[in-house]
């Protein structure tokens, strides 16, 4: 209680305040959806513009998109392996783009200028719901990848190389989504809080290096999330001999 009120009132930052949307019986965090729609809309517009007129000799935006595609393919291929990376590349790429766009969008766009009745706009990934949703999708994906590629033999993974590993491997299935979601959530929220506090205390110059650090962290977190997701999927489809 004390911690919450401290967080809520510290430096007049609104932490843990949400813009609630009530639809029937369910309640949503409206600010998360608002920012995610704006950012994803921008991403989709950007991608549509870049892929509108594809040529064999890439120009302008197409170059950038091809670079991005290549980057994601390399990421997926190194982590998942040559055999099935194609099936998972869109998912890994979407995770990367979603997290990256959310993180950078949250850091770069001055959302604070928009006044909401409650809560404030910010990176969608600074909301625990978003990161848990992403992490659970990753969990489902690697289970699906393992089961669809190896059938019931997937569960050999749990006793590989020795059955002693069984409890640890089972535990891993819980720690993987937990660490994925909390790492992303914690990093982005912490970045927003640090920048927010610094801006409140010293509005000039001082927050700028921290903002750059925030951009760096944001990019790294997107890369880490996508890489780990790909690694988990690769681990599940890997053949043991």
């Amino acid at each position: 209680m004390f911690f919450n009120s401290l967080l809520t009132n510290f430096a007049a930052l609104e932490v843990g305040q949400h813009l609630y949307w009530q639809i029937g019986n369910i309640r949503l965090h409206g600010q998360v959806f608002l920012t995610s729609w704006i950012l994803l809309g921008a991403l989709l517009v950007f991608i549509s513009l870049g892929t509108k007129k594809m040529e064999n000799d890439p120009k302008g935006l197409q170059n950038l998109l091809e670079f991005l595609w290549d980057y994601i393919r390399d990421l997926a291929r190194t982590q998942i392996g040559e055999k099935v990376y194609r099936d998972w590349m869109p998912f890994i790429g979407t995770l990367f783009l979603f997290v990256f766009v959310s993180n950078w969008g949250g850091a770069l766009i001055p959302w604070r200028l928009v006044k909401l009745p409650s809560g404030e706009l910010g990176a969608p990934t600074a909301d625990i719901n978003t990161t848990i949703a992403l992490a659970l999708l990753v969990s489902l994906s690697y289970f699906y990848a393992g089961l669809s590629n190896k059938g019931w033999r997937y569960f050999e993974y749990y006793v590989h190389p020795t059955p002693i590993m069984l409890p640890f491997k089972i535990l891993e299935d819980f720690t993987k989504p937990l660490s994925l979601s909390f790492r992303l959530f914690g990093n982005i929220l912490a970045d927003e809080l640090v920048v927010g506090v610094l801006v409140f205390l010293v509005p000039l110059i001082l927050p700028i290096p921290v903002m750059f650090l925030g951009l760096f962290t944001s990019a790294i977190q997107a890369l880490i999330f996508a890489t780990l997701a790909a690694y988990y999927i690769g681990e599940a489809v890997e053949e043991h001999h």
Partner: protein
Amino acid sequence: MLAFNFFGATEGGLFDINATLPLMAIQVVALTYILNSLFFKPVGNVVEKREKFVSNNIIEAKNKLSEVKKLEADLLTQLQSARTEAQRIVSEAEDESDKLYKEALELANNEANASKEKARLEIESQTSAARDQLSKQADDLSELIVNRLILEK
């Protein structure tokens, strides 16, 4: 009810988990499909087509290069054989001309020798004929002298 709070508040808080979670999951899955058809497939097609084009060209160029090398080696051996052939022909011709020269030389020598011999023989016969005639004249003269001497007496 999905919502529960770590910080005791009934509403809000950092760890306020509610229906945002499943909806966000659905949104991300939908985004995956949208990005797949809008981004990953078209860009992948273009990039892979180009990669295939480039690798095909490289393979083709390599094939052509090896063909060129083979042709070059072929030409080189042909050149080599032509050179030896030419050398053989030249030396053959040289031998031939040498032989012809020797033959002609021999023939000329023989002819010269023969005519020399003939001339010598002729000279000899003429010399002996002249000598015979000379001795006959000397005989005649001596006889004449003798006769005269005898007659004067």
